[in-house]
């Protein structure tokens, strides 16, 4: 389903939904995050796959988020995520810390349709101690009672939101080597994808493009959003905009500074478009 805009995609996501977002090195749809802020989304539960960055920080700052499950929240070179840190301290969000491969594993369990998957490591970490939803059992293939191992439950997000380089006429999307987005899409009930452009034909008919495609089977809706990952990089199309993120990090140190940034970068551009 091809929609008019990232705002039309954001309108499909109800308050309270569990929304999976890839990290700043793997094609988050910042365009949808901004649209969620414009629509005034509330109570979202975000899943960072496996960590969270810019999109998560602006959604938290705008008050859209009730809960974050992630392995880290960071703006990379620009430092700690300021709105995340403030919201945590003020008790406005619940944070469920995980570790990167645990998030991948919980999504892979959903992808395979199994109720759980095991993962090595973790035993003795306070991450595990604070996750009553994770279990330690003796490895059933070891001698009785030996070799404790962690089992992680399957996690099925309501929505996967990410950005891709292009969509084709059949609704397949192409995002190259960023295959974690495929796993997120497979595991989620719905995937909403912004793309730079639409092209003719079918990626699945082209042996060169097929391996970097995600089939329309998994894609609920797409919309064009040029530079829809910005300030995050898109493969070889555009780079990470360090100046933009650093300026954001400085502005978002205070609530006031964040509000001004939001007005200038999220609300004003949309009003300008609407007025044109």
């Amino acid at each position: 389903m091809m929609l008019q805009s990232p705002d039309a995609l954001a309108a499909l996501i109800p308050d309270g939904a569990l929304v999976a977002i890839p990290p700043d090195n793997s094609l988050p749809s910042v365009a949808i995050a901004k649209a969620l802020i414009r629509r005034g989304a509330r109570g979202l539960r975000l899943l960072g796959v496996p960590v969270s960055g810019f999109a998560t920080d602006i959604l938290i700052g705008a008050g859209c988020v009730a809960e974050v499950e992630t392995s880290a929240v960071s703006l990379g070179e620009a430092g700690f995520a300021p709105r995340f840190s403030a919201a945590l301290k003020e008790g406005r969000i619940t944070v469920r810390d995980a570790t990167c491969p645990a998030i991948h594993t919980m999504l892979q369990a959903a992808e395979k349709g199994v109720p759980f998957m095991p993962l090595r490591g973790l035993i003795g970490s306070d991450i595990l101690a604070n996750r009553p939803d994770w279990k330690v059992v003796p490895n059933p293939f070891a001698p009785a009672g030996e070799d404790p191992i962690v089992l992680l439950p399957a996690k099925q997000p309501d929505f996967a939101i990410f950005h891709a380089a292009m969509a084709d006429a059949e609704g397949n999307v192409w995002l190259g080597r960023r295959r974690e987005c495929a796993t997120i899409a497979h595991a989620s009930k719905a995937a909403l994808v912004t793309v730079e452009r639409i092209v003719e034909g079918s990626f699945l008919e082209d042996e060169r493009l097929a391996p970097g495609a995600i089939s329309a089977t998994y894609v609920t809706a797409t919309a064009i959003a040029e530079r829809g990952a910005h300030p995050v990089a898109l493969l070889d199309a555009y780079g990470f905009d360090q100046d933009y993120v650093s300026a954001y990090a400085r502005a978002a140190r205070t609530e006031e500074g964040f509000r001004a940034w939001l007005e200038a970068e999220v609300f004003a551009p949309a009003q300008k478009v609407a007025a044109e």
Partner: protein
Amino acid sequence: MIAPEERLAATLARLILDPAAPPARHIAVGAASPIPAAACWLVKLMGHPVRLSLLHRRSGNPFTEGTRELFDLTGQGRIDLFFLGGGQIDGQANLNLVGTGEWPGMGVRFPGSFGSAFMYFMTPRTILFREEHSPRVLVEKVDNISAPGVSPPGVFRRGTAQALVTGRCVFRFHPERARFSLASLHPGETVESVREATGFAFDVPETVPQTPDPTEAELALLRGRVCDEMIETYPEFCRRVWGRSRAA
């Protein structure tokens, strides 16, 4: 003039090449780690056969399955050495990347644990690296454990910390007694100055050598071909340490 970053990179390189440790045929380096990355390039450009997976290299990123692949690769036993740091590191080599105070870091929140709770177990060798060497970082007991330094018998674990390198010294880690020992002092440091800056107790041998200077050959490589390799991913670091700009 040897820059502190150059000394640290050369020190890490020596630890990588430690003949007493299991071989480091494939090393992965995580985000925002210019000095470990420089150490790895130094090892490789000295001609040692090592495969490097630099996670945040944009061009030539080695992974085609997304970020999951690093963890799968490590699970397979193909990664021999990884680097970890921590907002707090304690005397048993426990790492806290989550934050101080009550869980999940209600004092000072750090970014989060990333893959540490897995990588620390599944990699045969981990080199801990943290430039800041102060009692607030090197604590007696971490407030929260992202990844433990040692595990009870029967818990599957391939390895743990080999060493901890800071801006002041090199510690070796001894998992059998869950304790660090002082291995070498960087210039200007004494056993006493290190003890004052360290929140945990550690062993001190009778004589503690000074951390060696990088050799001329190492310095030439660092300033030349290592910098060439790093400038795309770490432009700011290369400018600051080596005065090189990207256009060069």
